[in-house]
């Protein structure tokens, strides 16, 4: 019976942490959706720069107020144990940040870049005003060093990260093509004749890469189907513009 009190404690801790992570993930999803909405507005508008700057500020706040606490929660844990809890938020964020980079610069951002945004030096932020219940226990603990996409961080003890499993990144990219599609359709409405065919080129590249993947997990295969449908919608849009 005494053993069961220990088990109870362990189960409760795990559930509590899971609850906190789900909540952070939900907040991240909502804020990411807002940013995407903002970015869609800027297509074809004159004050594109203003909108991009506004988005930049929102991303920064999102990093500090949500992702940093999330990183602290995951610190010293097996991130895959809580992946289901933070995966929706992370995917929505990847969708938002890739869309942002596309709108501002023009190409598909890679996972290393996304990962670096979600890596937080502890020293600097520690003194800032961010507070979470577990923060005090985290400092100086070594981060899970063996995560494959983050090998180079293995020596540093002074940072925490949200590890991004490559599949999560790709799922976010798949969702991003949905935004591209929406953007292209909006352009047709606005009689913008050029953007759709530019977008179409990028979508063809991504679609071609996705349909070429082997050993693909089921979730990604479903999104590939949606991606192909989005591509055909854009093709139809280009056709309509031509006719």
């Amino acid at each position, binding site marked *: 019976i005494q053993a069961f009190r220990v088990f109870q404690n362990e189960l409760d801790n795990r559930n509590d942490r899971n609850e906190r992570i789900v909540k952070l993930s939900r907040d991240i999803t909502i804020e990411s959706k807002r940013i995407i909405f903002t970015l869609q507005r800027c297509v074809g508008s004159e004050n594109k720069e203003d909108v991009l700057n506004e988005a930049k500020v929102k991303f920064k706040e999102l990093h500090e107020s949500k992702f940093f606490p999330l990183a602290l929660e995951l610190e010293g844990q097996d991130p895959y144990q809580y992946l289901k809890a933070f995966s929706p938020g992370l995917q929505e964020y990847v969708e938002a940040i890739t869309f942002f980079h596309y709108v501002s610069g023009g190409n598909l951002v890679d996972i290393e870049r996304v990962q670096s945004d979600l890596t937080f030096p502890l020293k600097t932020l520690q003194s800032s005003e961010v507070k979470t219940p577990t923060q005090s226990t985290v400092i100086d603990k070594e981060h899970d060093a063996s995560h494959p996409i983050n090998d180079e961080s293995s020596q540093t003890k002074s940072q925490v990260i949200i590890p991004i499993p490559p599949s999560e990144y790709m799922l976010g990219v798949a969702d991003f093509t949905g935004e591209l599609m929406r953007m292209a359709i909006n352009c047709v409405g606005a009689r913008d004749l050029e953007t759709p065919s530019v977008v179409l080129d990028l979508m063809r590249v991504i679609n*071609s890469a996705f*349909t070429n993947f082997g050993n693909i997990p089921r979730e990604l295969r479903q999104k590939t189907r949606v991606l192909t449908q989005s591509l055909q919608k854009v093709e139809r849009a280009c*056709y309509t513009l031509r006719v």
Partner: protein
Amino acid sequence: KIFKDFQDYLNADHDLREEIRSVVRDLEQTAREIQTILQAIHQPSNASNATSLCDQATTHFSKVREHYSSLAAKILEGQYYRFNDHWKFGTQRLVYLSALIVYLKEERLASREETAETLGVKTKREEGFHIDLDDYLMGILNLTSELSRLAMNAVTAGDYSKPLKISKFIGELDSGFRLLNLKNDHLRKRFDGLKYDVKRCEEVVYDLTI
């Protein structure tokens, strides 16, 4: 002992399926590579050099034939349908791709016989490892929806003659399929999609007329 024999049977079955799965994975990988090449036909810039894309794709079919020959070597006579769920999907895709090449080059339907030859398999069950008729027909139905998409993209690329030819071709295929007495199965479902392809092509032709 009865149960020992059965365990041996299960193990052998499992190992064979693992081997089949491994070959099929390679087969599907090659199919994806061919598809990636042929997807470029939708790009406006490639509208003219379809032939060169076809040639490029054709070279990969030697790999396909190798995969099928190593697959055929694994399947005992009379056991094709014990395992064909494994390669059904890949075969349908390869039928579609080889028939697409034939259409792009000669604007006609690839027969079951020549498709079997391109894939390196037999046409009929009695001859050995063959193309199941359902899979051949399924592949052809996949072809029609690809072509109806091409009809639209051809217009975008400024080619106004291709849609007319495609529309006629799909119309003929539609007549052919209407002759078949399909049961309520996958093929029937997919055939219902053909009506949509026909309509889509006719709309493109109509839009061009206006």
